[in-house]
C-alpha cells in the first residue's frame, strides 16, 4: 500500500501568516528558507577500529565513514554520511532509498557490534541559503561559521536558537541544511523566520 498521500511532514502545518510576513522580502531576498522534506536518516554506530564496519558501509552506500571530525563524506548529492561523533554517523539518503539501504546495512551487520537505526522521522530538514544565511544562524548559534572554519562539507551537532540541531553546510553559496528534531521543527522554523526578518527572508514551499 502506498502511503505517500498519508505522510505528514513536520512543517506541513506552518501557519500561513508567517509565510506571508516573510514574503514581504520579495525578490531581493538575501536568504531563503526551505522545508527540504523527507529523507532517509540512518544512525550508524560502530567502532573506529572496526575496519570491516567501514568496508561494509562503503560497500552498501558507496561512502566511507569519515574518521575526521565534523567532516561529511558525499554530498551535495545523496547519499551523504555526516560525522556525528567518533563512533557515530548519520547517513542521509533519498527518502525512497532508505528502506533498501537500511535493509542492506542491517543484514550485513548481523552478529557484529554495530548499531543501525532508522531515525528518518526523527528530524525535519530545513534549508537555509543565501547571502545572509550565515548571519541568521549566528544569531542563535555559537559556532564559528566563517568560511575559513566551517565550510561546505562540514557538519556538526550544535545548538541553534536553543534547539539541538545537526548543521550541515552543503555548498559554498552558502547552503545549510539543518536537521532538527521533529517536535522542535515548527519552533525553529518560526525562529528562523523571525531572525531573517531584517534580511527580507523569503519562505519557499516545495
Amino acid at each position, binding site marked *: 500500500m502506498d502511503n505517500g498521500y498519508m505522510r505528514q511532514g513536520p512543517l506541513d502545518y506552518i501557519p500561513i501568516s508567517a509565510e506571508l510576513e516573510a514574503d514581504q522580502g520579495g525578490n531581493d531576498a538575501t536568504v531563503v528558507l526551505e522545508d527540504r522534506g523527507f529523507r532517509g536518516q540512518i544512525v550508524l554506530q560502530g567502532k573506529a577500529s572496526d575496519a570491516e564496519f567501514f568496508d561494509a558501509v562503503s560497500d552498501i552506500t558507496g561512502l566511507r565513514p569519515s574518521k575526521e571530525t565534523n567532516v561529511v563524506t558525499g554530498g551535495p548529492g545523496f547519499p551523504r554520511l555526516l560525522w556525528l561523533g567518533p563512533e557515530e554517523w548519520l547517513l542521509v539518503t533519498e527518502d525512497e532509498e532508505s528502506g533498501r539501504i537500511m535493509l542492506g546495512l542491517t543484514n550485513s551487520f548481523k552478529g557484529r557490534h554495530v548499531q543501525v537505526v532508522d531515525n528518518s522521522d526523527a528530524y525535519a530538514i530545513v534549508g537555509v541559503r543565501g547571502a545572509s544565511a550565515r548571519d541568521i544562524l549566528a*544569531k542563535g548559534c555559537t559556532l564559528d561559521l566563517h568560511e575559513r572554519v566551517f565550510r561546505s562539507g562540514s557538519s556538526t551537532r550544535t545548538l541553534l536558537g536553543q534547539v539541538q540541531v545537526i548543521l550541515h553546510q552543503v555548498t559554498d553559496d552558502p547552503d545549510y541544511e539543518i536537521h532538527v528534531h521533529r*517536535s522542535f521543527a515548527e*519552533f525553529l522554523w518560526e525562529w528562523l523566520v523571525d531572525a531573517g526578518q531584517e534580511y527580507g527572508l523569503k519562505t519557499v514551499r516545495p
Partner: protein
Amino acid sequence: MKRQRYRMPDGGRIDRSQPLHFTFNDRSYQGYVGDTLASALLANGVAIIGRSFKYHRPRGVFSAGAEEPNALVQLEQGSHTQPNLRATQIELYSGLKAESINCWPSVDFDLWSLIGLFGRIFPAGFYYKTFMTPNLLWPIYERIIRQAAGLGRAPSDPDPDRYENINTHCDILIIGGGPSGLSAALKAGQSGARVILADEQNEFGGALLGSDDEVDGGPALDWVEKTVGELEEMAEVRLLPRTTIFGYYNHNFLTAVERVTDHLGVSDDPLPRQRSWRIRARQVILASGAIERPMVFENNDRPGVMLASAASTYANRYGVCFAKRVVVFTNNDEAYRTALIFKKFGIHVSLVDVRPEFNGDWPRKATAAGVEIIFNSAVTGTRGRRKVKGVNISAFGMDGNLGETRHLSCDLLAVSGGWNPTVHLYSQSGGTLTYDKQRMCLIPEKAGQAVNVVGAAKGTFELERCLKEGAREGARVAKNLDFVGSGSVRSKSKTVLENEQPLQPKWLIPSRKHPEGGPSHFVDLQTDVTVADIALAAREGYDSVEHLKRYTTLGMGTDQGKTANINGISILSGIRGEELPSVGHTTFRPPYTPVTFGALAGRQVGQFLDPLRRTPIHHWHTRAGAVFENVGQWKRPWYYPVLDEDMNDAVVRECRSARKSIGILDASTLGKIEIKGPDAADFLNLIYVNSWNNLEVGRCRYGLMLGEDGMVMDDGVTSRMAEDRFFMTTTTGGAARVYSWLEEWLQTEWPEMEVYLTSVTENWATITLVGPNSRKLLGELTDDINLDLKSFPFMTWREGKVAGVPARVFRVSFTGDLSFEINIPARYAISVWTACMTAGEKYAITPFGTEAMHVLRAEKGYIVVGQETDGTVTPGDLGMERMLSKKKDFIGRRSLARVETLRSDRKQLVGLDTEDPSTVIPIGSQIVATTKKRPPMDMIGYVTSSYYSPNLKRSVALALVKSGRNRHGERVYLPMENGTISALICNPVFFDPEGERLNG
C-alpha cells in the same frame, strides 16, 4: 523657540544645514545633526539638567562621554520612555523629548532639595542608625525612603522595540577607535586577520574628535577619515561604531551592545533598536583611552563645573562655547590645551595651576595667547548656586596651607586632575593593575587573558606614541596569530614640547572651613558622596575600600564611579596614611556602561523564550479543540472539551469512555531509546532494579530506575526486540535525562561494555488505545497481527501493519484496562490516528488528555514519577520492593541498605478513602494523625495524587504516609483552610483490584 545662544558660527562636527528640534522639560529647543543632547542643551544655555541623588542639588553637564555622573535624563515618553540616560551619550534626533529626573515639581524648583537643608543629619549610612523604633513605623519610613530614592521612572507599557543578538568570532577585537585603536586596526587589518573594531561613539576618532591635533601634517580628523576609509575596504574587517564593549568574560568572550537605531529616534524601522554582540576573540587589543580625573573642592558640583577635556570637546567637536569667562583649574599640563582652545575662540581665560611656577612650552604658549596663569594656587570653592558665577582662589603651597582668598568671576570652571586609563575591561578580564607613580594613575600590570593594551588605556597619553604603539601592537598581535601583511607606513604626529612638567598629586583642595574637606566637597557627584562622608566611614571603621564603597555608596551609581573612585580611594589613603596601592581598589564589574535588558534578552522573549515541542499529532488536537497543558517543553492535550463542557465535564466523559468502550491517547512524548549490543541485557541489569536476562524476545517488562542514592529516578516499559536489542521507554519528563544517564554510565564507568544507544523518541509516534473495545478496533486496522489473548498476551509486543503503516504494538497498560500502544513512524501519525478515529466511531472512540490519563491511572494506584516521587522516595516506599533483584548489583542498590532507607516508618504509598466520597482533596495537602486547634501539628504525610473518579463515583487519592502500609484502616485528617477533611488510609488500588480488566 530659543536660538542657540552659545553656538559658535562655524567649526565642529555638527551639520548646521540640518537643524533638529527637540524638547527638554517641555520647552522647545534647536540643535543640529551631530549634536548630543548635552551639547545641544549647552548650546541653548541650559545649565541645570538634573538633581543629585540624595540632596537634590542642581547639576549640569560634567563630561562629554560615558563617564557622565550628572546629566541623567528621562528620554521619551509612554512605552518608549527610558530612564537614567546620559545626555552626553544621546545623539540628538528630530523630535527628541527629554525630561529631568529625580526632582519635584521641576528641575529648577525642586522641593526635595529641602533635604539638603537637613543634609547634616543625614550623613553616609544614616539609615542604619535610625528608624528602628517603634517597629511599626518602619514600613512608613521605608516608603518615604523609597520614594525619595531611585532616579528615573520605568515605562508603564511593554516595549514596542525589537532587540537582536548575534554571535561572532574574530582573530583580533579592537576596543576603541581613537588614534591608538585605529592604527592598531589598520595594521591588523592589513595582515588579513579577521578584525573587529568597536567604538561606543557614533564616529571613530576617539579623543581626536574633540581636539585640534594634527597627524601626518594635517588635521588629525583627515587622518581618521582616511584610515576608516581604508578599513572599510578590507573584507575581513568589521567596523562597529555605536557599539560599547561592556563585558569581558572567560576565555576571551566579550559582549557588546550596538545601538542600531537609537539615534534615529522613535521610528518604525524594521531594524532592531539595539543588537547585542557576543564576541569570541582570539586576541583583544584594548584601546579604550582614558578618563579625565576631576578635582575635589568645596561646591565642586555646581552647574558650570566641567572636566577640562569636556569643555574642549564641546568647543571643538560641537561648536559650543557657553562661557564668557573661563577658569581652568589644573594640576597638570594637559589642561593648558583647553585654555588655549577657549582663547582661540576669543574668550577670557584664567588658568589656576596648583604647581609652582615653571618655564615650559605650555605656560609660554598660554601666556603668549593671553591666558592669565595663576601658579601655586587652587580653586577652593565656587560661587553661584544654580550656575557657577565665580570661584574662590587661594595660594596653595607645598605645605598644604591656604593663603589669602581672592575671587574670580567666571561662568565655566574647567577642571583637570590628570587622566585615568580606562582599564575597566582589562580588570574585568582578570588583569591586575598597578599604580604608576610617575603618571599617578592605575595602569594595566599583568594580563589575565589574551589582551594587549595600547594608548591612553595603558597610560600612553602622547598622540605620537599612541599612534606608534597602536601600529606596533596591531602588527605584532596579528603576526603572533600568523597573519603577516604589508601596509602603509606609520602615521606621525609631531608634538615635541619642551619642559613638560609632571602632574602634581593634589586633588583634594581644603577650604578654610573644612581643612580636610567637608560635606560640600563632592567626590561622587552621582551618589552625593562627599569627603565628609568618606571621613566618617573611615572614622567608624568602614575603612577598607570595599566597606567605604558600601557604607557611603561611593561608585555605586549608574556611572559606577568613573570620575569618582580614584579620588575616593586616594582620599581614603590619605586618611589611612597609606599609599594608594596598599589601599587597593574596588572590583570592576560588567557592564562598562549600563545595558538595556531588552538587548540582553534579545529575541529570547515571547514565543521564543523557550523552545516549544509539538507531537506529530499536535495539529489534529488543535483542530479537535484540545486544551493543552505545558509539560516541560511539550504541549500536551490536557482535555478535549465538547461544546460548552468545562474541564470537569470533559474529563468525566473521557474517563468513562475509556473504561466503557475505548479511549485514545497521544503518548508520543514518551522517551524511547534503542539499546543494542552483546552486553545490552547486562547493562540493563545495572541500570534497572529488576533483572533482564530472562526476558524473552517479544516480551516487555516494567523497569524501575534509581539514582545512585537509591531514590526512584524514572520508570517505564522496556521490550526485548532481539537477543541483543532492547527498546526502552521512559517518562516524558525523564526522556533526555535518562538517555544522558545511560550514555554517562556507558562512557565513563563501563566503557568495556559493548552497548550502543540511540534515542528514537522523535522517530516514533505513540498512539494508545484504551478500553474493552480496543482489541476489536485494532483488529479492524490490522491484518497481520494476531490480537487474540493467547497469541498477544499482556506485556508482549508485536510487529505488523496498522492502518497500512508499519507499526510496533505493545500490550501494556497505564490504566488497568485492556490497552495497546501503537508506535508508528512519525510521518504517519496523523493518518493512523485518523484511521483509529474513523474506525472507532461506532465504538464512540473518545480522545482523552493527560488529566483523564491521570484519573485513570490513579484509580489503579499506578504511580507517576515526579508526582508520587520527588527524589526522596525509594522503591520500598512505593511498595515495589519485590521488584528489587537480589542476585545482582544495580545502581542505587547499596544506598537502599543505609540506616535511613531501611527504617520501617518511612513514608509509604497508600490510598485515601475520604469520609465524604465527593470530597476531592487538593493535591499536596498534608496529613495529620490528630488535629489540633492551631499549629504546629505533626505531619505524617501528604497527598500526591487526587481526583474525582467518574467510574467509581467517588474521589480517589494517593498519599505518602509514615508507616502507611501498616496503617490501612486508620483515620487521618487533612486540615484545610476551611475545615478539616477526614479520610481512611486504604489500599492504593481503587479500581479493579483483582486486575480482571487488563485482558479486556
